[in-house]
């Protein structure tokens, strides 16, 4: 899921300092699991804004905030409240925020969250980055552990000289990705493959932004 974190309230208030009427838009997917854009957080935001003299004209938790057409349909029933608002506060990720930007061309939209990474929830409200969306997966070569993401240097050929007792030079709290890959491949009987493989440098042309994917196309998009 996409991991988000609420920004400082001061920064949020500063963004909307010129607007009094606000519509709140949340998301029932990742932002709800991150406690940054669920019904509960929208209520909290409403209370905070009201205390600051703002008026919340309405609020809605979209089913999937990054699904533009679905969100458009869902928001029809809130047209009046959105019309009455001077701006929209998006309590979602950067993508969900831009759904609102796309749907409401004449209205300012501000995000409430910083979007951090694509990761997994390993324990309640605890998230770990797992995928860098590099565009060319190498998990099949690395025992299923991503060095592009799990190694702060994103290096592709074994541990660097900064590995100390299986931990990373960046922080003793971070396990060395390449030691994990080594141990995992040994455990699943792929040590020989670990020894024999020198991955080539990544093809970053696969990461040229903005990327577009049309899954309907029969031909692979470039």
């Amino acid at each position, binding site marked *: 899921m996409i991991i988000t974190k609420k920004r400082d309230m001061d920064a949020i208030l500063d963004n909307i300092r010129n607007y009094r009427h606000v519509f709140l838009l949340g998301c029932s997917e990742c932002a709800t699991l991150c406690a940054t854009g669920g019904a509960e957080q929208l209520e909290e935001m409403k209370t905070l804004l009201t205390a600051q003299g703002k008026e919340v004209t309405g609020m809605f938790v979209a089913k999937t905030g990054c699904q533009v057409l679905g969100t458009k349909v869902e928001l029809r029933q809130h047209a009046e409240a959105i019309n009455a608002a001077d701006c929209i506060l998006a309590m979602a990720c950067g993508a969900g925020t831009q759904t609102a930007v796309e749907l409401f061309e004449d209205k300012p939209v501000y995000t409430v969250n910083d979007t951090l990474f694509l990761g997994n929830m390993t324990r309640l409200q605890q998230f770990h980055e797992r995928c860098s969306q590099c565009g060319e997966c190498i998990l099949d070569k690395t025992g299923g552990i991503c060095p592009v993401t799990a190694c702060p240097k994103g290096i592709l*050929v074994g541990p660097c000289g900064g590995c100390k007792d*299986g931990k990373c030079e960046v922080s003793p709290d971070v396990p060395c990705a390449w030691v994990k890959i080594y141990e995992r491949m040994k455990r699943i009987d792929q040590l020989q493959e670990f020894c024999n493989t020198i991955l080539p*440098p990544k093809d970053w042309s696969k990461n040229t932004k903005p990327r577009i994917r049309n899954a309907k196309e029969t031909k692979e998009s470039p």
Partner: protein
Amino acid sequence: MSLQEALESGKFVVTAEIAPPKGTNTDEIKHLLDLYDGRVDAINATDNQSAVMRMSSLALSKIVLDHGHEAVVQMTCRDRNRLALQSDLLGAHALGIRNVVAMTGDHVIAGDHKQAKPVYDVESVQLLQMIRSLNEGRDMMGTPLKGPTGFYAGAVVTPEANPLEPQLIKFAKKVQAGAKYFQTQAIYDITMFNIFMSHARKMGAKVLAGIVVLKNERMAQYLNDNIAGIRVPAGMIAELAAAPSKAEKLETGIRMAARLIRQLKEERICDGIHIMAIGMEERVPEIMKQAGLLSD
């Protein structure tokens, strides 16, 4: 004599490391180059070591070369993408530099520009492959060059890494990618180093043991606690602690370094040493003398 000739001649080779200045003034560098005249076989210029911004290793290598020393340019993958690395390698060759040591490079978070974007477009093994390709007259895309490079490529290794096996596997990949010699992380324990050397000898690469002089027991403990792959044995720490004064602790550290070097040489454990003086450059001639490497 080139570094390659020195290593292949079978002599016990000495390389020393110099950090470029943080600034443009090279007076101190020139003093160190004078100090090392006739005493070392080659001088490494470090590349923004510990991710602290300094003069480029390429520029310092040229200064080293102009002074009459054999120069080794250190190249990390932290600050340059594959275009910049290749163009700097072509430039280094054009300036007369023939030795390059490839390394991944400390993360920017260790340094003085923590907000910088770390690059790591390639890492040490891939950089060695790149150097081999340039030596063969092609860039890494296979496009022919107007004039190949002629680098003697080296790399670094941590003989006492924990865990050791993945480090040894990476070592083998560096050899496979064209590394002909290795300068190691600082070593103190001959027994541990011998275990590594028994592995390294099978790979056929030359090994220069890293030497860092211990100034006192606090420094030794700091290295053990904070620096990856350094293990100062308890006996050495005790020996430093037993010395009564600051000056005597330093003399003890120098004696221990000289003793280690002497043993490495006399027992032909490795092919030479790589001295990382870290502020102790003035004492290097004396350490070498105590170790039996200098007659004067």
